């Protein structure tokens, strides 16, 4: 019983890591709380939905393509709009992303309607019966893909020249400029990367959860909690935070019923904030 709950929680948590990774990246590097993030995820899920209905593309295969499509859109949005206020106080950038999110969300409501849609895999992927625990294969695949995405982000930041530049800008903008790094271009790249990751995560969610513009606030809320749980701005942080939230929700669903899963998670979050205000891993860099 406990093993099954843990397994459910970990499967969910692996998905959550990809949901939060881009949000954490933008917060850390641009110092912007990007309220568009949940809508980027939902947009990605719609991408997977339409590719699936129109062309029968598996949502898992759609993830890289939808992510790549998102990149130039987000890059343009960042350079044309967000870069103009990126150095202003958080309240201004927050208001801007709030407004942009309102617009994007309303556009999605107009285009897609508020009804819930879902990608129904045909044939279904079935379950993996391990005796003590039973794992739905669709969730297993989604979680594995999600962790791969997060690993790819980590490798990019850790091992490449561009990634090092992103980390340098996060740590110290002026010192990064003294290395010859184009700080504005790095912001745009970071934002676009984060949006791509969000859209790809949305594709992975498409066969598991109902798709609707109204779901964006839920995803945004989860990204928030995960960042606080894991400590802001590090890739290992979102993995730890994601798993922590997944397990909490799964325990919450057991003790209070599925409809209160989120409530328990937030209660535990409040407790954690009292004990360890800097998150489970503390406040560290992208390492």
């Amino acid at each position: 019983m406990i093993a099954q709950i843990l397994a459910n929680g970990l499967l969910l948590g692996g998905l959550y890591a990809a949901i939060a990774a881009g949000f954490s990246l933008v917060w850390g590097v641009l110092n912007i709380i990007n309220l568009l993030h949940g809508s980027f995820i939902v947009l990605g899920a719609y991408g997977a939905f339409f590719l699936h209905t129109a062309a029968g593309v598996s949502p898992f295969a759609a993830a890289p393509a939808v992510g790549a499509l998102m990149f130039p859109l987000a890059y343009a949005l960042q350079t044309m709009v967000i870069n103009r206020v990126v150095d202003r106080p958080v309240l201004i950038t927050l208001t801007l992303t709030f407004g942009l999110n309102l617009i994007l969300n309303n556009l999605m409501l107009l285009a897609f309607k508020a009804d819930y849609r879902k990608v129904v895999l045909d044939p279904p992927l079935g379950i993996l019966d391990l005796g003590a625990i039973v794992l739905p294969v669709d969730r297993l695949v989604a979680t594995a893909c999600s962790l791969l995405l997060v690993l790819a982000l980590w490798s990019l930041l850790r091992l490449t020249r561009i990634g090092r530049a992103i980390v340098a800008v996060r740590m110290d903008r002026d010192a990064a400029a003294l290395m010859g790094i184009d700080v504005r271009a790095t912001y745009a790249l970071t934002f676009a990367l984060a949006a791509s990751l969000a859209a790809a995560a949305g594709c992975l969610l498409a066969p598991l959860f109902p798709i609707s513009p109204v779901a964006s606030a839920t995803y945004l809320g989860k990204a928030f909690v995960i960042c606080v749980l894991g400590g802001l701005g590090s890739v290992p942080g979102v993995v730890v935070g994601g798993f922590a939230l997944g397990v909490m929700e799964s325990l919450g669903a057991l003790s209070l019923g599925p409809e209160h899963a989120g409530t328990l998670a937030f209660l535990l979050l409040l407790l954690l904030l009292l004990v360890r205000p800097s998150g489970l891993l503390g406040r560290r860099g992208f390492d």
Partner: protein
Amino acid sequence: MNAPLLSVVQAQGGYGDVQVLWGVDMKIRQGELIALIGSNGAGKSTLLRLLSGLVRQTGGQIWFAGDDLSGTSARRRVASGLIHVPEGRRLFAGLSVRDNLLLGAHLRQASRAELAADLDRVAALFPRLAERWRQDATTMSGGEQQMCAIARGLMGRPRLLMIDELSLGLAPKVVDQLLDALDAIRRTGVTLLVVEQDVAVALACADRAFVLDHGRVTIAGDASALADDPRIRASYLGED
């Protein structure tokens, strides 16, 4: 006489509405070691930031290697070989010594082999860094961090390396090591502009020196002559 490497003409600049530099004039020739001295708040760091493009220029000109840099990006200046080791070292926390050094070479289109050779060169210059390649750069001692900051600057292949607060907070023995390193750097043909609190040290190692006071160059000349200048002795060497 060949043209100076850096020529600053009546440069003005500051932060927002606060003007700090009120017309700075300065010429530096290829291969010189120049000391920039002045009391706290005189504008030394601001001048270096103006030269590297972090502070907005509101007047005058900056010529470097034949080009007018006024109004150009920080990136462009790094690319042309004008490199600034900032006050407080400003190493990137959470990144290893090696990653910090590689960031210094960010703009160069260098092959792996070239980068490896340059890492070897700075390791030979500062053997203490070579023992700490994988360590978080900001967990090193102050002296090691300064070495790392200078080495990071060298990774960009500077023509003019500007170092702000070379010796601040460091033990005399470490300062001696840094001065030896500056000598070695100079012998490779790099021109140096060093901001130094310790005026005696500055004048002992430099060819020439500029004194900055309230955003203007008030005294300039050969370091040995300035060491005997009564104004300097009174104001900066603590004598009456």
